[in-house]
């Protein structure tokens, strides 16, 4: 459509039809004040500050909600406009508390700014008390609604951006205010404390609950969040070299826009934890044979590390040393780390705990799609034609991805949720496929997808052309599944056949975006489920479409990057297989160094080797295996056998207690580097504060170590590492040239053919039995990221009152006589026993769980949930450590 030409302040401007006057003016450098408009929220027209005058009609109109029209002659600053604006601000100010001096919004208050711009000081109106609630009880958000100007941003952010629905208006007129259901405190509402409303609030009505800081931060700097794999852009408020406030970055084209989650917004106070490591520590033995970690300098500590490791290598061979990198550290650090392992110490024993947390899924999907679907933008997910979420924990694990799904559904995309649990997403809308009538718990996902697939095939709802062109059915999957009765498959899964029909009719002939959970391959039958999912994606043509395909959430901020950098025993940087001689040679040539022949040990094999005494030393960077791996007692036993452990980390933890040398590293806000998020977006950042004490950026520590160990290259600046990455990793050729880059995909968008996986009839796995009649799932709750190493040190998270009760189905609670107890107020303590261990915790009824299922949230109580998990389930191909048979004992 043709642009519309109009005049604003005597200047001819043009704008596409439908543009608001406000936007058209802003695009042309004419600023109009406003308090309720936000580019990510639908036009609203509440505050009326953005009034402008139209000369021809003489009308005043709110520019944020009035679309441009031909021949309009707009004045944004006429005396009449100013007079009206002044009066509106005067009305606001006259009932606003006179507490600017002690207000947390301080000089960032938009109301104050607008009032100052318009010259409103004295209101000449009578005092009019406006008594509204003041809430400070939760550790995240302070609500002082007397300062609320009813711009509605919080409510709209809640509804439109994060789709939670915790707050809405209550009452009318002067008494109206944003409230939760029944005006309960926020912590008793559905609020997830994402804090999106806090950052949008133009006044001090909503502010961050701070126990250690009041006022306005000195500076605000942009960086990337170091928690989950969404890779949100943050704006960190800094005072006295401390991060005192977090908001979404105002930059454009960020993954999160105006949203964040409770961790990203409020958990960064872990940076100030008293348990931060401040000095290098080396284990000393006193005369009585007691050992202790004593502070020292980096020079001495690194000499010890280089010396001991060289010694062990010389005596026990390269294979006796292992390296565990980190999905939390930067690309540059992981690259340097694996290079040190491979080139200096000559071993491929390099992995990361991403190996137990999401790497398998990323690798499997990359393999299935032949590396062509690396870039999957969340904005594409938001524009999806249809969404199938399978066992999806997105709302808790990667909340920002969850917002994108919900927004897609709000835009009208049909949603099918396959999940035995009534997740937030299952409750959100669309069709929820769940075992209403029994079915095998471990097989539910596969059975459900097979039923849906068979139904779609039966109804001709698949993309024949795409399938014929690309699908290679070497295992005869299509005839096999076509021969099945969809209704029988549905019943096998315990789903009512009509529900599957309904889901199929919604998905028919649509390009589907599939969202598996980030931990899919850590669950029972995960691999078979992924096969079934992939086949469905292939026959519906989802892989060929921009807004469809498989969207893999990543649990940790740099899970993708750590893999790309070659933190894997069988892969060099850039996914080059060690088993591929030519790939290996090309890297060796670039490095001008030999690369060890044999593939190294993965995390499971390293622990077994430590137990067997063949592994002598471990260098652990940014990981806490004693907290994050299954069966921590076994892991502890293995680590205790080692001769030498180096832990490079930011916080004191159980693993540092065992270490011989502890090197204090820097957290994400304290160093330069880059993370690659779940979308394939490489995001570079610079330090916002400096590390505490003597701590140094991890890349700097590694660079010093390399020098100490005699490596000739001197990585004095991060740019030197980046130069090398750009050369060695073809998909990272643009690393560091801009704040944001995308992983480059090699080859054409779609390869010639994809193999269809065979039809799976899942094995029994760990189906419950008489001794352990329940099946537990160890999963995420939004308060903690993964094992909770950092979130558990956040004073706000720990004060939130979220205690991670073991969640039990209502029917089971009734059978166990637990339901009654919890009605009496106190939460009953139970002991949960698996074949591998036991934990004791409070129990709570979760109405969304089917009978026989137990949910154990991770990250709480020092992540004790790992005590019931099976370490051997880590052994490739992995049998799903997150699912485990359990029984309950009442305490």
């Amino acid at each position, binding site marked *: 459509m043709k642009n519309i030409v109009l005049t604003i302040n005597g200047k001819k401007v043009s704008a596409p039809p439908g543009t608001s006057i406000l936007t058209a003016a802003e695009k042309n450098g004419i600023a109009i004040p406003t308090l309720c408009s936000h580019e990510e929220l639908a*036009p*609203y*027209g*509440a*505050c*009326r*500050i953005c*009034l402008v005058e139209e000369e021809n009609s003489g009308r*005043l109109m*709110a520019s944020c*909600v*009035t*679309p441009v029209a031909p021949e309009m002659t707009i004045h944004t600053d006429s005396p009449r406009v100013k*007079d*009206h604006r002044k*009066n*509106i601000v005067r*009305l*606001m100010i*006259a*009932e606003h508390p006179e507490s600017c001096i002690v207000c947390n919004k301080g000089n960032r208050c938009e109301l104050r700014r607008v009032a100052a711009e318009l010259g409103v000081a004295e209101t*000449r*109106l*009578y005092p*009019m008390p406006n008594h509204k609630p003041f809430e400070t009880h939760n550790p995240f958000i302070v609500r002082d609604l007397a300062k609320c*100007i*009813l711009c*509605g941003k919080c409510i709209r952010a809640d509804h439109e951006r994060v789709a939670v629905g915790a707050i*809405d*208006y209550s*009452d*009318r*007129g*002067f*008494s*109206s205010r944003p409230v939760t259901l029944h005006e309960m405190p926020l912590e008793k509402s559905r609020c997830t404390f994402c804090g999106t409303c806090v950052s949008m609030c133009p006044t001090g009505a909503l502010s961050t609950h701070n126990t250690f800081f009041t006022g306005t931060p000195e500076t605000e700097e942009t960086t990337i969040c170091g928690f989950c794999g969404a890779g949100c852009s943050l704006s960190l408020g800094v005072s006295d070299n401390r991060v005192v406030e977090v908001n979404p970055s105002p930059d454009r084209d960020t993954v999160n826009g105006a949203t964040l989650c409770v961790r990203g917004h409020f958990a960064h106070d872990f940076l100030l934890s008293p348990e931060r490591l401040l000095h290098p520590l080396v284990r000393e033995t006193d005369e009585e044979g007691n050992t202790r970690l004593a502070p020292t300098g980096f020079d001495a500590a690194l000499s010890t590390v280089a010396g001991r490791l060289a010694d062990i290598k010389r005596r026990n061979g390269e294979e006796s040393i292992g390296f565990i990198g980190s999905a939390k550290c930067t690309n540059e650090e992981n690259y340097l780390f694996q290079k040190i392992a491979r080139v200096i110490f000559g071993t491929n024993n390099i992995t990361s705990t991403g190996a137990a947390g999401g790497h398998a899924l990323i690798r499997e999907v990359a393999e299935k799609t032949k590396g062509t679907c690396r870039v999957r933008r969340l904005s594409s997910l938001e524009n999806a034609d249809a969404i199938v979420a399978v066992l999806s924990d997105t709302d808790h694990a990667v909340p920002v991805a969850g917002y994108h799904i919900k927004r897609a559904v709000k835009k009208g995309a049909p949603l099918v949720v396959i999940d035995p649990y009534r997740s937030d997403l299952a409750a959100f809308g669309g069709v929820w496929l769940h075992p209403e009538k029994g079915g095998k718990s471990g097989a539910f996902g596969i059975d459900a997808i097979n039923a849906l697939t068979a139904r779609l095939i039966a109804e001709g709802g698949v993309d024949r052309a795409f399938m014929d062109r690309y699908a290679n059915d070497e295992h005869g999957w299509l005839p096999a599944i076509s021969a099945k009765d969809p209704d029988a498959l549905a019943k096998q899964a315990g789903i009512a056949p009509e529900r599957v029909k309904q889901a199929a009719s919604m998905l028919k002939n649509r390009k589907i975006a599939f969202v598996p959970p980030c931990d899919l391959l850590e669950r029972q039958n995960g691999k078979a489920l992924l096969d079934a999912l992939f086949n469905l994606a292939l026959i519906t043509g989802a892989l060929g479409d921009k807004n469809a395909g498989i969207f893999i959430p990543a649990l940790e901020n740099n899970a993708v990057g750590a893999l790309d950098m070659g933190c894997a025993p069988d892969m060099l940087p850039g996914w080059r297989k060690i088993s591929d001689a030519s790939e290996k040679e090309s890297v060796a040539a670039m490095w001008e160094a030999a690369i060890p022949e044999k593939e190294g040990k993965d995390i499971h094999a390293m622990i077994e080797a430590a137990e067997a005494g063949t592994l002598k030393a471990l260098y652990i960077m940014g990981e806490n295996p004693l907290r994050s791996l299954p069966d921590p007692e076994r892991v502890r036993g293995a680590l205790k056998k080692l001769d030498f452990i180096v832990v490079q980390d930011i916080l004191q933890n159980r693993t540092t207690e065992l270490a011989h040398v502890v090197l204090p590293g820097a957290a994400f806000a304290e160093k330069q580097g880059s993370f690659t998020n779940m979308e394939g977006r490489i995001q570079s950042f610079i330090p916002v504060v400096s590390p505490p004490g003597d701590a140094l950026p991890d890349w700097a520590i590694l660079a010093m170590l390399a020098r100490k160990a005699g490596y000739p290259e001197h990585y004095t600046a991060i740019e030197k590492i980046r130069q090398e990455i750009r050369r060695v990793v073809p998909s990272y050729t643009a690393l560091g040239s801009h704040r944001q880059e995308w992983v480059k995909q090699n080859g054409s968008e779609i390869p010639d053919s994809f193999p269809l996986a065979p039809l799976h009839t899942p094995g029994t796995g760990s189906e419950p039995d008489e001794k352990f009649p329940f099946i537990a799932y160890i999963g995420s709750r939004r308060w903690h990221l993964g094992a909770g190493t950092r979130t558990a040190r956040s004073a706000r998270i720990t004060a939130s009152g979220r205690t991670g009760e073991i969640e039990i189905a209502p029917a089971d609670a009734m059978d166990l006589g637990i339901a009654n107890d919890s009605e009496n107020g106190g939460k009953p303590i139970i002991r949960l026993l698996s074949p591998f261990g036991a934990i004791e915790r409070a129990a709570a009824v979760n109405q969304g769980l089917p009978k026989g299922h137990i949910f154990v949230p991770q990250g709480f109580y020092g992540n004790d949930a790992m005590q019931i998990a099976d370490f051997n389930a880590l052994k490739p191909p992995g049998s799903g450590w997150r699912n485990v048979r359990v029984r309950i004992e009442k305490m």
Partner: protein
Amino acid sequence: MNQARLELMLCGGTGCRASGSHPFKDALAAEITRRELDGEIRIVETGCNGFCAVGPVMLVLPEDVFYQKLRPEDVPELVEEHLIKGKVVERLLYKDPGTKKRIPLMHDIPFFSNQMFWAMRNKGYIDPEKIDEYIARDGYFGAARALTEMSPEMIIEEVKTSGLRGRGGAGFPAGVKWEFASKTQSDIKYTLCNADEGDPGAFMDRSILEADPHAVLEGMIIAARAIGSSKGYIYCRTEYPLALARLGLAIKQAREYGLLGKDILGSGFDFDVEIYQGAGAFVCGEETALMRSIEGRRGMPRPRPPFPAHKGLFNKPTVLNNVETLANVGQIILHGGERYASVGTETSKGTKVFAISGDVNNIGLVEVPMGITLRKMIFEIGGGIPKKRKFKAVQLGGPSGGCIPEHLLDTPVDFEEIAKVGAIMGSGGVIVMDDQTCMVDMARFFMDFIQEESCGKCTPCREGTRRILQIVERICEGHGVPEDIETLEELSVVIKNSSLCGLGQTAPNPVLSTLRYFREEYDAHVYEKRCPAKRCAALLDFKVNEDKCTKCGLCYKACPVDAIVWKKKEVAFIDQEKCIQCLSCFSACKFDAID
């Protein structure tokens, strides 16, 4: 249907029910049975007759004899004299307050003879709970014509010819509105009826729904046909239980008769209607708020464009018409738009229904041709001001309207003319005020209503109406300062120009129009701390003026707390200790003897 010798059309509207029409009906029915007249005399409970002031009322057909203020004890005489002997019962007839003569026939009573019944043509003549009676009076003939003989374009053309304008207040031409919606392409369109009548003192829509619900349904069917809509909602407030019951029944009957649902009258056209009950928010009468409310969300207006004709309910093209507008549509289609347009003024055609209340003799519902003067409406139809008091002003258009003083009473009923004098036609509420009304106090009353009903979304309305109320209250309480009047004027203009929806844009009208015509009363309150109408308690002395007191003792009788000391032939005295300042004595005193 057996033809009865006499049909007793007893009003069963809300007003007459309140004044006791049901006990009367029971007594009447029992007496008729006792006298074995069941076969020849039929009692019909109708919807609102309109003459609520003299209720319960009953019309005897075919004779057209009109009885008023009926009590159960009147039954034996009425049956004996009129129903059996055929003699009119004189004492139960309407007495003209001017000539003091009893008038037996309804069409001779000035209240009725000056009216023109189009939208309310069936009121009092049919049993609203019987679809056959509606059909017998040409009901659904217009819909039949629209569905079987006319194209949507022809319907729209006919309505445009009639000049019918929206009766909800804004007066937007109905035909034009339909044309917009008909031209918008969509898989589904909605036809809505706004029955969320909320103005204090307005009950036109309720009465039409109670008396003739099928007329509204017929209008909706025609509107739906014109725009190509298959689904309709009637948004009616919960506070109208009788209207809701009758509407529900009418919808059920219309479905049974094939007038709603699939393939109406074999035309291939599908349309059905549902009732949606509003929960009592005034702002839900605003069209965008009403639609949000039907969507199940909080009723809050949104900016336009997009206009509902393009994106309305559930973001689909929607037309919303008021009850009275729709009630006119069937007859316009049946008899042609030109007949409708033959009545009225240049820009305002047809008739308009008003609810007259306040200080006026004939409180009730009237339908007048457009162009009639306010004076005629208030003094001839309305019967003038009671208790020989003086007319002071009339509030037209509800809280969002304005007051019109005596010297402008010859303003004709016409959208534009009324707007010129600072009021609005509105939905048709007419509140007549006598000289005992304080105009500042009146503005306070309406501002209190408006600020309470503001939805709170936009700043000028939320903050501004509350602020105006605060200032007006201060003036009424004697705390006013000269700058207050300036502030009122300043804020009023801002609220009017900058509010989001119609509620806010008209919210300052009570203050603006009283300031325009009765500024001296504000001045008296502010400068002299005096309330000329003696209604603002804070500005009164509560003392008897000995010169004016006629020692009649009326005040003594009126006082609810025995605060007045009075003996025959003595001047009354008010005991300040006991006085609760309820103003009863002021109302009672005929001689203005209390200060």
